[in-house]
């Protein structure tokens, strides 16, 4: 479904992505992990052109995403994107967040869009909050509305950029459950996350990145039990024993 071919990206002189060659199959759930600054968010943001690339190609269903003739709005309408900071539109209700784009872009009638939005909010367990504003929702609820908003465009592919990193710990579970349900429905998902339990349970494949390179690609089982790359081994040690990593006695 997605193919990276020799993708390179620079921020000025700093190279953020180095020779990325990767394919993601239809229906696959891929978790991207790695230390901060490793390029994982950059990678996922190149898939819907939030970040431009300077070398190589990214193909989505055979189409060159970054080709100048590719309409960026059409491309993005077909890719769901969920942000770390939720980014709900605060002047609109949960329901209106989910109807805005379908009405404007798919030409849905208001009532059809609302019906769809309600069923999506139901799916993320928030139909009772349809008329709430973002300021009236918890972080976990905001993120679930954001997922429903992305789903409202009926995208075949969903991208998640650290969807639980801005959440209080007790709200992480509800968001991960929602994503897990999407995986069960056979949707193609690319998830940047530090939630190793989630990766283990839901992912078909784990990509480990550092310094803009994909250093390791493995099944979750392989990755967590016997990572090959020394940097991946170190990373797993650090996230399992944060006190040791910080040089502090537990």
């Amino acid at each position, binding site marked *: 479904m997605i193919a990276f071919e020799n993708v390179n990206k620079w921020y000025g002189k700093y190279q953020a992505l180095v020779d990325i060659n990767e394919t993601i199959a239809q229906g696959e759930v891929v978790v991207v992990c790695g230390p901060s600054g490793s390029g994982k968010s950059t990678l996922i943001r190149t898939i*819907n052109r*939030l970040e431009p690339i300077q070398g190589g190609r990214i193909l989505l269903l055979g189409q060159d995403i970054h080709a100048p003739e590719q309409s*960026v*709005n*059409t*491309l*993005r*309408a*077909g*890719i769901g*994107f969920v*942000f*770390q*900071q*939720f*980014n*709900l*539109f*605060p*002047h*609109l*209700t949960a329901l209106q967040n989910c109807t*805005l*784009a379908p009405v*404007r*872009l798919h030409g849905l009638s208001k009532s059809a869009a609302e019906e769809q939005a309600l069923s999506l909010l139901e799916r993320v367990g928030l139909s009772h909050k349809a008329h709430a*504003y*973002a*300021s*009236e929702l918890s*972080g976990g609820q*905001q993120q679930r509305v*954001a997922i429903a*908003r*992305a789903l409202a*465009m009926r995208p075949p592919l969903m991208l998640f950029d650290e969807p639980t*990193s*801005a959440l209080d710990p007790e709200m992480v579970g509800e968001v991960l459950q929602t994503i897990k349900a999407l995986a069960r429905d056979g949707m193609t998902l690319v998830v940047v996350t530090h939630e190793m339990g989630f990766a283990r349970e839901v992912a078909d494949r784990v990509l480990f990145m550092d310094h803009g390179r994909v250093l390791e690609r493995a099944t979750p089982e392989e990755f967590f039990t016997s990572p090959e790359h020394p940097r991946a081994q170190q990373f797993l040690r650090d996230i399992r024993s944060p006190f040791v990593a910080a040089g502090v006695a537990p």
Partner: protein
Amino acid sequence: MLEQYGLYFLVGLYPKGPLGGLALTLLLASAGLLLAMPLGLLLGLGRISPWRALRWPVTGLVFVVRATPLLMVVFWAYFFLPSLTGVRTDRFNTMLIALVVFDAAYLAEIVRAGIQALPKGQMEAARSLGLGYVQAMRLVLLPQALRHMLPSLVNQFVSTIKETSLGYIIGLAEVSFIATQINTLVFVLPTQIYLTLGLTYFVMCFGLSRLAYWLERRLSTSPHRPAKEVTA
């Protein structure tokens, strides 16, 4: 005095002559606001446009106007513009052009700041859904930004009301000009005349401020206030 000159103060020589006085001031201020706001909005959007061909000239215009006293802009409109276009506009329209250009430049900066103060994720989220730049601006960013801008906008509107008094120097018969006329005719009551004039401006500006304050409070007690920005 009030009996003799009250009506003159309010409407000038109208209906026997051209409209003037307080009525003309109100007309000038309202027309100025109504025209400056959309122009300021467009200039503000131009200031942050991703297209350089639009952004640079607009930025240049805003900088030039902001670095110029309004009096100078009025002179330009009065002396320079007719010699450039060959068309002699009347005093009212000359003053209106000067006010609109001058205020639009300031409003543009308010609009720019209001939009740029929103979290960057709002534009990204809107664009990620497939909305175009203009749609995202109109449906997602501006509705939020305008609410934040309200106090600054009102500030500028109040200034506009006071700025109409500069019409005096090109002989526009607005309320300050009329008050001076009355003072010349009466000669012995300058304190009363200019206190009345001052009070007149105060009532107009204070009224607008209160109206805005009421509007602001209404907007902020409604539930759709923006969420606090979440930190990672």
